[in-house]
């Protein structure tokens, strides 16, 4: 007779509940403890006084404005791109599908280095921009370009998948009723996929806000120009711990809001084919 067979059913159930509970506790604590630790290292007074630090304000303002601009560009270009890509067949579509996912697996530092090689002052294209007096690397524009490069796949993947799964009978009905393709897209397709699109947009914004590797390689770390919040945390760790702590807490709060927003939005149903 096996030893497990000798344990009464009641105790076996308690043991399995304990094992499951322990597993959930370990995984959750591992993921949450470092974040909680941030709040233990500061006080409300210290947090509020650091918030007034010009470097914190500058990093916060730069991060928010560049992330919003990146998001707007991704939505304006990415939405029609994802729609056309999902509704048409063209040579090399599979390759394009793979390439737009590339920034998701590419190390951000490599992404930033690649952008530098392309758009830097002596870069493949950058030298021609330079001849026209346009400098891209180590500017705020470079911050936005780096954010778009690393964050856009989050939106593109989501939008592509939504348009592929969307029940086309809604669009066909609108067309037979007299709506043009553009009117159908704006009044039927977009509103009926809006929940998923907003969720993709929020994830893109979050990724852009947290961008570090590509930004430091391509845009540098200049306060007021390219020193975004994650870069300011890096600086703070070396020279101003409280500033780093304050910005980290701000980023945690923003990330938490993003996750809650995505969870609430993804509850809405999209009509599927």
């Amino acid at each position, binding site marked *: 007779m096996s030893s497990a067979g000798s344990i009464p059913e009641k105790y076996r159930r308690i043991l399995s509940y304990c094992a499951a509970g322990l597993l959930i506790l370990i995984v959750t604590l591992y993921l949450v403890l470092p974040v909680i630790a941030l709040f233990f290292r500061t006080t409300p007074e210290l947090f509020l006084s650091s918030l007034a630090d010009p470097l914190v304000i500058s990093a916060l303002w730069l991060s928010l404005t560049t992330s919003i601009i990146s998001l707007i560009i991704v939505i304006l270009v990415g939405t029609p791109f994802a729609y056309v890509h999902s509704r048409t067949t063209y040579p090399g579509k599979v390759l394009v599908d793979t390439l737009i996912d590339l920034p998701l697996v590419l190390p951000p530092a490599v992404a930033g280095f690649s952008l530098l090689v392309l758009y830097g002052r002596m870069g493949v294209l950058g030298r021609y921009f330079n001849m026209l007096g346009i400098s891209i690397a180590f500017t705020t524009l470079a911050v936005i370009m780096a954010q778009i490069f690393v964050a856009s796949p989050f939106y593109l993947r989501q939008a592509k998948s939504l348009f592929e799964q969307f029940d086309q*009978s809604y669009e066909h009905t609108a067309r037979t009723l007299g709506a043009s393709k553009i009117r159908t897209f704006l009044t039927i397709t977009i509103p009926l996929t809006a929940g998923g699109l907003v969720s993709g947009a929020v994830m893109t914004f979050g990724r852009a806000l947290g961008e570090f590797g590509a930004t430091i390689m391509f845009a540098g770390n200049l306060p007021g120009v390219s020193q975004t919040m994650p870069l300011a945390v890096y600086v703070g760790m070396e020279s101003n711990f409280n500033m780093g702590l304050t910005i980290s807490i701000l980023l945690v709060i923003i990330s938490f809001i993003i996750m809650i927003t995505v969870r609430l939005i993804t509850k809405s149903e999209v009509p599927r084919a």
Partner: protein
Amino acid sequence: MLEATIKKQLRDFTLDLSFSVKQGEILILMGANGSGKSTTLNLIAGLLHPDSGCIRLGDVTLCEPPADTNVPVEDRWIGYVFQNSAVFPHMTVAENVAFGLRARNLPRTEIADRVSQMIDLMQLADLRDVKAGNLSGGQKQRVALGRAIAIQPSLLMLDEPFTSLDAESTHAVRELTRTVVTKFKIPCLIVSHHIADSREIGDRVLMLRSGKAVWEGSPQNIPDDEAVCRCR
């Protein structure tokens, strides 16, 4: 009058049909799944393009591939009700019915008049301001029918409109369909694989098998063996 001669190569067979539907007449397209019924409706609506043939609606040639004639979907004036009714769930019943009228830039007063007329005809007055996503299957089909008729189409097409409805709703939608076809004197094409639908509402039946017409006649004379073996 709808006159259609359609040829299109599909994956498994060639759709090759020729038929006509008179004003005020209801033609039922019957056949097993995958026999080409819905494809035929999509070709007439302009959502698909035939390889050859000619589709005429009254005096207008909608599509004639050799002559390069192809009227865009939005200019064909065809009321098309899909199997799932495809009511726009983010709009109210009234907004759904008004959609086609707004898309065609009709004056506001005319839109309001036609919407009220359709809502009354479809017995949807109590649901006028309800979001269409919250309606039952039968109510959605009535909204879809009212919305399709509101544009005063030259042809009405319904793709399996009764499939997901209970007996009471099926009866109501059948009655309403017959009413609008008679009232507006338009040709009507209904896809169904239920003999009961054909007998209740159809004036004529065209039975398809692998894209070809295999039987045509009165719903009362549908041959039992054909009906049972192929169409149910």
